[in-house]
């Protein structure tokens, strides 16, 4: 095939892909911002953009999808949007602003490389952020996302640099409490399109536009330098050979590598690395592979192929976001999923629940929908003793309710307990 004819259009499209989430309180203009991102880089096809001409366009109408939402004028679920700039293609995971749907923000954060948080510049008074804004920032911090704070509606405050700095300061205080590391701020007017794709508005601001910041974000899955973690999803049998198939969550693997297999960390060596049925010389984090081992080892679905330093544990402390409408009941057992493993788990103790207004750690005896808490957990089978900050792929876990099958909680391992 001759690819020459496609070059002009296609070259501009073949950059990397960044997945980001958006969050904001209901009136901060988040839907308008997303509409602007979709409209300005010309990502919208003509029929979707119909009715969006003129100065006073309803950008929010682009993203509010379901009929029920249209009627209420709110977004109630996570929605995914696509657009591309000449350098990069993007997937937006749009999380809702409503407090009761924090679980959807957690969901969006878990599949994102970076978080964009929208704040209405006109609504920050006396240096105070709204409780929902604090909650959103807390979730981004908890889940280890870099944060881009978009200070919106700057046109309504006359592009006041003082107001912009006030928001930065208010946020800076909160960020310290939450342990947020990388935060960037951009003054914008989503409605007018200033500093989203094209510059405008403030002559005092010479930093990057929102899109420039997004283009330089790092994909989160670049964990190729870490220790090997390959959870086995399924064992493929062909002839007399067994192939351990799964996605590499961290590290890289080559034929000949010495690895450790299962909770007993039995040594084995890699005979073959396959992708799509074909042998390759090397595969790294993010790749879905099938490994053949040189030795016969006892390894099944749910087991892990790892490096020599791997450690397992049955007890650990974790941050939990409670996602289920059914509150936690002491003594109740849940299914815990880490990588490809499912085992039983028991929440032994709730150390504290974070109060989202003060961001303080408050003692608590229960867990209910949207609570963010530090807990200690015991598991029936050994799980990888990986901290979320070091190894997000395997330091994360979820809890399922074994009776309702609902997803009960999202967890991040913080500490290994004896």
């Amino acid at each position: 095939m001759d690819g020459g004819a496609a070059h002009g259009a296609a070259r501009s499209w073949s950059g990397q892909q960044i997945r980001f989430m958006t969050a904001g309180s209901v009136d901060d203009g988040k839907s308008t911002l997303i509409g602007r991102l979709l409209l300005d880089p010309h990502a919208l096809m003509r029929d979707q953009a119909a009715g969006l001409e003129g100065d006073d366009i309803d950008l929010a109408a682009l993203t509010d999808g379901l009929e029920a939402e249209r009627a209420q004028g709110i977004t109630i679920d996570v929605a995914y949007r696509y657009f591309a700039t000449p350098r990069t293609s993007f997937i937006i995971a749009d999380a809702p602003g409503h407090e009761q749907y924090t679980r959807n923000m957690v969901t969006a954060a878990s599949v994102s490389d970076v978080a964009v948080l929208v704040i209405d510049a006109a609504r920050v008074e006396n240096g105070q952020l709204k409780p929902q804004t604090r909650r959103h920032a807390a979730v981004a911090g908890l889940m280890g996302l870099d944060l881009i704070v978009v200070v919106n509606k700057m046109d309504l405050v006359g592009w006041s640099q003082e107001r912009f700095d006030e928001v930065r300061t208010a946020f800076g205080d909160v960020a310290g409490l939450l342990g947020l590391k990388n935060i960037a701020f951009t003054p914008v007017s989503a409605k007018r399109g200033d500093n989203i794709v094209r510059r405008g508005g403030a002559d005092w601001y010479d930093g990057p536009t929102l899109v420039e910041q997004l283009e330089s974000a790092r994909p989160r899955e670049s964990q190729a330098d870490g220790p090997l973690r390959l959870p086995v999803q399924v064992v493929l049998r062909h002839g007399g050979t067994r192939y351990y198939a799964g996605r590499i969550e961290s590290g890289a693997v080559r034929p000949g590598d010495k690895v450790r297999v299962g909770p007993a960390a039995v040594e084995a060596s890699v005979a073959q690395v396959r992708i799509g049925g074909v042998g390759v010389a090397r595969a790294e984090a993010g790749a879905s592979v099938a490994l053949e081992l040189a030795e016969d080892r006892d390894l099944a679905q749910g087991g892990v192929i790892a490096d020599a330093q791997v450690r397992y544990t049955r007890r650990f402390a974790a941050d939990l976001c409670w996602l289920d409408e059914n509150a936690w009941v002491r003594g109740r057992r849940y299914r815990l999923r880490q990588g490809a493993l499912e085992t039983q788990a028991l929440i032994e103790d709730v150390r504290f629940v974070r109060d989202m207004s003060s961001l303080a750690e408050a003692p608590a005896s229960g867990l209910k929908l949207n609570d963010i808490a530090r807990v200690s957990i015991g598991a029936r089978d050994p799980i990888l003793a990986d901290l979320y900050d070091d190894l997000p792929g395997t330091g994360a876990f979820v809890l399922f309710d074994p009776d309702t099958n609902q997803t009960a909680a999202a967890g991040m391992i913080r500490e290994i307990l004896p």
Partner: protein
Amino acid sequence: MRLAYEHGGALMAGEALEAQAPHVAAARLDRLEAEAVHILRELAFYERAAIMFSGGKDSAVLLHVAIKAFAPARAPFRLLHIDTGHNYPEVIAYRDARAKETGLTLIVREVEDSIRRGSVRLASATASRNAAQAVTLTEAQQEFEFDALIGGARRDEEKARAKERIFSHRDAFAPGSPRAQRPELWGLYNRHIGVGENMRVFPLSNWTEADIWAYIVRERIELPSLYFTHERDVVRRDGLLFPVTQLTPPQEGEVAERIKVRFRTVGDITCTCPVESFAADAIDVLTETLTAAVSERGATRMDDRANAAAMERRKLEGYF
């Protein structure tokens, strides 16, 4: 079937991939393929899973990835096609040939049979049968007790679909209530279902139309000839080109003309329109796609244009 990565090399970095088409976004396609393979391997969990295989391009890509996901073993899926009876013969021939090539069992269930049973009643003999597919699909799901049905739907297709989970949990009578869907975190999918429930799974959720075509180019996936330029009798109506067939004759006062067209989707004859095109192969189509001004469904699907919320309603009725 030819597979990519015939030479060893670093994956995800993409630099050692065979470079047939230098403009194809290797790193991005690798990420999307790896994600789809990961999702498909999750489905080994189910006892009776089936791939919805219509012979359309998205299902062709889905089948291709499924074969790769389980190679060198056989993919643990059957193929299921809900045939409206209004399909182009080229597509049906392609469907049968692909099924045979992969060695997977193909199950075909006809909307016609649902009509005969009385579970589907149409307004007229030539009415679109797209909505009726949902009924026949549910009947087939129950007949074979499928616990997972795997579809090639993408989130970029339509607003309501943009909110679909990758694992979309269905009970017997409320197939797609958007409020009841489970949160989906880190790719740690919740696969559990209760008695009488099933899972609809969409491994290509994060792909766009351009990604699909780029992947078809890279993997050299064969498609029905309707996807490429050919001469066809059409009439112009409401800004769309309507194919002239026995089921869809010209209306009074309309004049058929013969022009070069291709189909962007190949659904039910009565509701799928071609677009004017000279694109002769997948690279040509990719180029057109990247410069297209009208989205896939808007250009070609009459039933979606009927109502902005058409897709969402069909979802509630169990349509994919």
